[in-house]
Every structure is written in structure tokens, then in C-alpha cells.
């Protein structure tokens, strides 16, 4: 018996569009290969490496203290946190004591930088969805945090402020005043920001139930930071593995609850960052009330020579997730091997999985919630 040939369904080949490396909403030089069928994206493959600067190789050739400015340029939106992680890593490797005042200053700048970084994240996320005004409102607040950091460090983006053994300059009274003034109005400004963007009906329609990431999937892909917490995993290094002096402060860890849709959807990932800013202001208030007297710099040998074949792996909670440095010393003035685990790098690896069969507009909206900084992805 002859079976009649089945007519083939009419099908063309997918249209491949390259989103990036020059594209308004890839947040840097990320290239995403979109395999599209009309408006539907069948696969979105991220291509990275456009900003690769051999950071790990450079680390093997220059001294421990000279590497601090290089860490600035990894996650350039949260340079203080990167400096801090590096300093902590070297301090653990070479056993350097940090004075209490320096720890306070570190928490202070770290949290301020977290606010600045999250403001960029939520502001540009509005931009990704076509809302321009919230972006500038967020940048207005960010400007104030940068003014404070500038007062302390002299820099506005790449600070190089947190050094091995302490911080570069002591806290000033003027910076304290500026911070008090900033904190006095920041929550009200955030509330108005929420009215403008977070609870906007169109915004919720665009973000809720899109790109939901489950907690198990997030852990399997090694996702950390706000993205992990948005997926409902209650995990924050500042509370669960307290480093520095975080155990002295009282703050809550916001976790995604799926208020407007599923747990771990785009709106949740966005909302986590807003809530973290509220928590950061709480920490900042406690920090500036409890500043101890003392030195801002510990005793650091002129030439650092950590013990031979010592290995450390240090991670901290940066605004984008857990930044970790894996360092092996060979007893010389430079590290034998240095590996930086950028949180954005790991977070971005779930992107292809998450954006399967989405609309183009949703791919952009999902990428925005990842809040990637390409300097850290490519290193």
C-alpha cells in the first residue's frame, strides 16, 4: 500500500538578527543573536567577549596593591564593592588586620554604591520599556550619592578608594552631612519613583509573568544576588555569611513574592532592587550613627608577600550578585593565579534558557532585569 505523501507545513527559515554590540538596550557591548519567526524569538543566544581585557592575565603580572584600579573597571557601576572584595581577598591571603573605622567606611561606601548601582538598573530598565522620565529621576538621585563618594574618594565612577588594609582617605564631616541630607529625602523620592514607574499599569502589564525564573533553575545556573532573591531564594551573604561588620546592623533581605504575577518574573526582579535600596538606606542610617574613632588604614607591609601556595576564595555580595576572587600565591610579589568570578557572567548564562519563544520586546525587557555590566562579564 502506498501512503500519500504528507504535505509539508509551510515554513521559512528563521530570520537571524544581531542585537548589539551597538544597540540601545544591550547595556554595553553584548551581542544577542536573535533567531526570530516574525515577532517571536525562538532562540536568543548571547555572545560576549567584546570587552575582554585580560584582567586575569594582568593580575598575574602586577602587585596586589596595584591591581585595585583594575577591579574598578570590572563592574564599573559598583566599583567600591569590587575594590572591597579585592581588598578582602588580599587581606585574607596575607592576614592583614583592618581597623574598625575602616570597616565602617567600607560598609558606608559599599551601600552607597549599591544604591547608585541599583538606581542605574531601575532607571535604565524604564528606558528599556520606553519610559524616559524615570531614568532621569533615578539619575538625579544617583548624582547625589556620587557627590558623596566624590567627596570621599575624588572619583565619581572608578574610585580605587578601598585599599588593602583599609581605605584611602578618612571619612569627612562634610560627607556625613551630605549623607544625612541625602537620606532625609531619598525614601520620599523612591516612593514617587514607584508611583511613576513601579506601579504603572502598563509597566506591570509589560513585566509581570514574563521571564519567570524558578528558584531551582536559578541555583542550578549559579545565579546570585537580586536575581536569585527575586526567584524566591532567601539568600544574602551580608546576612547569611556576614563579612566585614554586617552582623552589627539590622536590615531585611527582600525576597521575590510574585506580587504582580509569578515569583521570579521581570517585575519581581525589578522590584527587588527597589526594596534593596530601602534596606540600604536603613544600613546607612545605622552606619553614620555608629561611626567609631580610630585609624582608617591598618598596618600593611610595604611589599606584600603572602605565604607560598596559599589559596583563598573570597566572595561578597555586590549589587549584581556574588563577586568572588580565587587567588593562588606563590610567595612572590604578584599572585600566581587570579580568577575573578563576575556575577553578571554567571547570571547571563541563563539568558538563552529564559528567553525561549519570547517576543522581541520581552527579550529586551528580560535582559534589562538581568542588569548586566559587560565589564564584569568579559573582564
Amino acid at each position, binding site marked *: 500500500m502506498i501512503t500519500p505523501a504528507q504535505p509539508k507545513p509551510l515554513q521559512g527559515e528563521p530570520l537571524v538578527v544581531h542585537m548589539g554590540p551597538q544597540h540601545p538596550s544591550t547595556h554595553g557591548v553584548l551581542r544577542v543573536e536573535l533567531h526570530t519567526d516574525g515577532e517571536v524569538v525562538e532562540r536568543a543566544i548571547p555572545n*560576549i*567577549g567584546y570587552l575582554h581585557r585580560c584582567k586575569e592575565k594582568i593580575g598575574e603580572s602586577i602587585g596586589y596593591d596595584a591591581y585595585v584600579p583594575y577591579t574598578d573597571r570590572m563592574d564599573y557601576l559598583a566599583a567600591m564593592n569590587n575594590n572591597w572584595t579585592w581588598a578582602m581577598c588580599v587581606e*585574607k591571603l596575607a592576614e592583614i588586620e583592618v581597623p574598625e573605622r575602616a570597616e565602617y567606611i567600607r560598609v558606608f561606601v559599599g551601600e552607597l554604591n549599591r544604591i547608585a548601582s541599583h538606581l542605574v538598573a531601575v532607571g535604565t530598565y524604564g528606558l528599556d520599556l520606553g519610559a524616559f522620565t524615570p531614568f532621569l529621576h533615578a539619575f538625579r538621585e544617583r548624582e547625589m550619592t556620587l557627590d558623596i563618594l566624590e567627596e570621599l574618594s575624588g572619583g565619581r565612577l572608578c574610585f580605587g578608594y578601598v585599599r588593602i588594609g583599609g581605605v584611602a582617605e578618612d571619612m569627612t564631616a562634610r560627607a556625613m552631612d551630605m549623607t544625612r541630607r541625602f537620606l532625609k529625602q531619598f525614601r520620599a523620592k523612591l516612593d514617587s519613583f514607584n508611583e511613576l514607574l513601579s506601579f504603572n499599569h502598563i509597566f506591570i502589564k509589560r513585566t509581570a509573568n514574563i521571564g519567570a525564573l524558578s528558584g531551582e533553575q536559578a541555583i*542550578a545556573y549559579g545565579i546570585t544576588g537580586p536575581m536569585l532573591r527575586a526567584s524566591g531564594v532567601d539568600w544574602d551573604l551580608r546576612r547569611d555569611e556576614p563579612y566585614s561588620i554586617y552582623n552589627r546592623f539590622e536590615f531585611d533581605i527582600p525576597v521575590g513574592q510574585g506580587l504582580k504575577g509569578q515569583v521570579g518574573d521581570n517585575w519581581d526582579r525589578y522590584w527587588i532592587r527597589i526594596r534593596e535600596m530601602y534596606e540600604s538606606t536603613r544600613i546607612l542610617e545605622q552606619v553614620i550613627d555608629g561611626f567609631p574613632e580610630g585609624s582608617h588604614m591598618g598596618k600593611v607591609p610595604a611589599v606584600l608577600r603572602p605565604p607560598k601556595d596559599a589559596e*583563598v*576564595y573570597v566572595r561578597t555580595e555586590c549589587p549584581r550578585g556574588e563577586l568572588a576572587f580565587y587567588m593562588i600565591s606563590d610567595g612572590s610579589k604578584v599572585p600566581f593565579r587570579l580568577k575573578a568570578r563576575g556575577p553578571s557572567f554567571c547570571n547571563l*548564562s541563563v539568558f538563552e534558557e529564559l528567553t525561549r519563544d519570547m517576543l522581541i520586546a520581552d527579550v529586551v525587557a528580560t535582559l534589562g532585569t538581568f542588569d548586566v555590566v559587560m565589564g564584569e562579564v568579559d573582564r
Partner: protein
Amino acid sequence: MEHIDLYNLLKERFGEETVLEHVVTGDPAKGLRDPFILIRCEALPDICEFLKTDERTRFDLLHCISAVDRPEYFESVYHLFSMLLRHWAILKVRTAKTDPHVPSVARIWPAADWHEREAYDLMGIVYDGHPNLKRILLPDEWEGHPLRKDYTFPEHEHLREIGL
């Protein structure tokens, strides 16, 4: 679970010829640093599978994979963390300098996918069984693996491109 207990557990389960050594780095006189467990290269997927699924270990988060170029061998270092039990495991495998091969763990933790690609790209360790092992940071046509200690940087790459 303490790291040394983990080592004893693994040794008991897989035998001494597979789970080779528990090393505490640093100088005993000047203070100790992170420990690691050295295991045989071939047994890596089995051990990882065990570490992920066993009730006592439950390592659900692969935090990082780093490749290290030692004078005699390459190392692939796995930093594992358990979100449920909140403990660490640091595994190391060694592979030959010429034609280095390590079994892939991307099947066990999807997070390993990009980490292994990065290690392959920069250090040249081939991860067997990886679903998509190609360069990730450098261009596909790049020659050599820059993180190796014997890597010589191409001179005036940009000048050659414009014909100087």
C-alpha cells in the same frame, strides 16, 4: 559539614585511589588558608553527581570553575556550595600539560557550561562531554590560550591588520 569530614566521606565512598588527598594550603607557621580535595580526573562526574544528590552533601550551587596552569600539569578547580546545608567543597583535578582533557560537569550543573567554555578558551583545557565547547570571550579564530604561562602575545596585532 567540615571540609575534612567531606574528604573522609568521599574516600569512604569512592576509595583512596580515586579521592587522592586533602590539602590545606598555606604555611602552618604563618597561618592556613582554604583547603581542597584532590581527586582523580576520570571520577569527577561520578563524584560530582554524588555530591549533588547525596543527603549529607547536597551541593546544588556550582560557584566557580577555575583553570590553573602549574609547571607540571593543569588544574581545574571547582568551588561548590550548598544552599541547603551551607557548606563548601573545593575539588581539584589535574590533567596533563599536553592535550589536557577533563570530563565536563555541565550535565550536572548548567552553570558549568559557561565556566568550562571560559576555561577552554583561556587555558585550553578540553572538557569532554560539554554540549557546546567553543571559545566564549575570544574570537573563534584566535590562536593559543592566553592564560597559559608560556603564552606569547601576538605583537602589534592591530598594526598587522591594517598592513603595517
